[in-house]
């Protein structure tokens, strides 16, 4: 069957630019806001070193230039040094996205030698207690040490802090910590509600007032430090009235390869019903990008319903996020309900309204840490894990 955006508009498909390699879902942390799929424990075997090398080679051949090594915690793979070195030879600009757990001097020296370009270190909060609670582990001291190693090896100091209801009031302290560590770039990324974060949404979504205070603190801090630190403040899309231009369009620039080799147009697309996504073990990346039904389904705008179909803004936001549309409305071809023009927008405004009230006591709705045990529990359920619509 011919799907919208396939053969007829093939000429318009541009080459990919980004490859996200989620090399493992193993992770020493158990963050409550993790976007990884909640059923990751049911996935097949991780790709071997040679299979990853094939993915890197084939993706580079079709034009990918930016490469992110992510996970899980990519440092859990003891062949990461091999992948990094090959990535450099192939001409990727590569980035290690890490919690820092498992990064020691021997490994960072090997990454430098192999040609890794950039390391992005995640922090959960500025205070040790909150950092350790949110990631359900004791890692704060270790992260500070890793930050020093990153500087010692002349990498740009890029910090990523995921913001939510429980840490957003510490925004100023978080920025002070970043400054003390010599950070050059800081991304204050509000939680996106996928995977584990969606399960925990009612505990994580900040109030409007918290959000406004955090933005004000960020601006005050920017004024003080000037250009020595670049700070990106990413607002949670639930508080926007137009959706994000998710992935810059489906199958437009971005490829995610999951630990078991499943190839997706974004990190979350595996959840979408009725689509099968190819595995890099069975197919060439060129076929996957240009020909596979999974990558062509939501290319272009032929799949759109109203209000997107006739909306002049569809060229800007592509109808938002297919996965969010599915998670919140049950149909991936609906407009992303973040959009105020969506007939389902009330789902988002209701979640936002709930967030303005005091948080539920954790005894009523316990927060769920990302770990194998919880993942196995979620996997038993046929429905995707989502918070109760109260």
């Amino acid at each position, binding site marked *: 069957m011919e799907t919208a955006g396939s053969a007829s508009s093939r000429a318009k498909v541009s080459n990919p630019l980004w490859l996200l390699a989620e090399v493992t879902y193993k992770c020493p942390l158990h963050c409550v806001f993790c976007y990884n799929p909640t059923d990751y424990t049911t996935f097949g075997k991780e790709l071997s070193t040679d299979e990853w090398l094939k993915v890197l080679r084939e993706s580079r051949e079709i034009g990918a230039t*930016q490469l992110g090594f992510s996970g899980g915690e990519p440092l859990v793979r003891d062949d990461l040094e091999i992948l990094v070195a090959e990535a450099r030879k192939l001409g990727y600009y590569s980035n290690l996205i890490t919690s820092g757990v498992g990064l020691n001097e021997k490994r960072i020296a090997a990454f430098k030698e192999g040609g890794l370009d950039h390391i992005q270190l995640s922090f959960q909060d500025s205070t040790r207690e909150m950092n350790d609670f949110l990631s359900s582990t004791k890692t704060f001291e270790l992260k500070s040490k890793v930050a020093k190693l990153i500087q010692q090896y002349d990498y740009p100091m890029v910090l990523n802090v995921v913001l939510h209801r429980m840490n957003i009031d510490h925004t100023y302290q978080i920025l002070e910590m970043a400054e003390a560590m010599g950070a050059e770039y800081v991304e204050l990324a509000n939680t996106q509600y996928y995977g584990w974060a969606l399960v925990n949404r009612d505990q994580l979504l900040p109030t409007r007032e918290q959000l406004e205070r955090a933005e004000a603190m960020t601006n005050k801090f920017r004024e003080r430090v000037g250009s020595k630190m670049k700070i990106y403040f990413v607002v949670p899309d639930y508080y926007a009235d137009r959706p994000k231009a998710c992935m810059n369009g489906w199958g437009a620039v971005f490829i995610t390869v999951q630990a078991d080799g499943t190839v997706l147009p974004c990190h979350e697309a595996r959840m979408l019903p009725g689509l099968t996504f190819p595995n890099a073990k069975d197919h060439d990346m060129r076929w996957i990008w240009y020909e596979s039904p999974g990558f062509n389904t939501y290319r272009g705008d032929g799949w759109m319903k109203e209000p997107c179909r006739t909306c002049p803004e569809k060229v800007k936001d592509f109808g938002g996020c297919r996965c969010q549309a599915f998670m919140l409305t049950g149909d991936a071809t609906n407009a992303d309900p973040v959009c105020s023009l969506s007939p389902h927008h009330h789902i988002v405004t209701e979640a936002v309204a709930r967030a303005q009230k005091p948080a539920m006591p954790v005894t009523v709705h316990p927060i769920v840490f990302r770990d194998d045990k919880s993942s196995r529990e979620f996997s038993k359920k046929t429905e995707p894990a989502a918070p109760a619509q109260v």
Partner: protein
Amino acid sequence: MTEAVKFSDDTVLDLARYFRFQWEPVQEAHVLLYPEGMVKLSGSAGEIMKRVNGSATVKSIIEDLGKTFPGIDLRNDVMGFLEVAHGNGWIRVKQG
């Protein structure tokens, strides 16, 4: 914040820290790669950036371009591009 810099003939230019310059066969263009991004360069911008290597002076960059493209006065165009590139943070002045 970047101030307007007037380069002299003896200024030595280098790529900015963490930037990489390379040829992308799929896009048939030179590009600059940096954390989380890429700039696709036009043909002439690529020819200029190819010569920004941490040892060539502004004067030698212009002279070398003149050998590749003889008979055209490139000086103003090259100076203009280098200032834009510096303003965008793609290149830096190498301190002697």
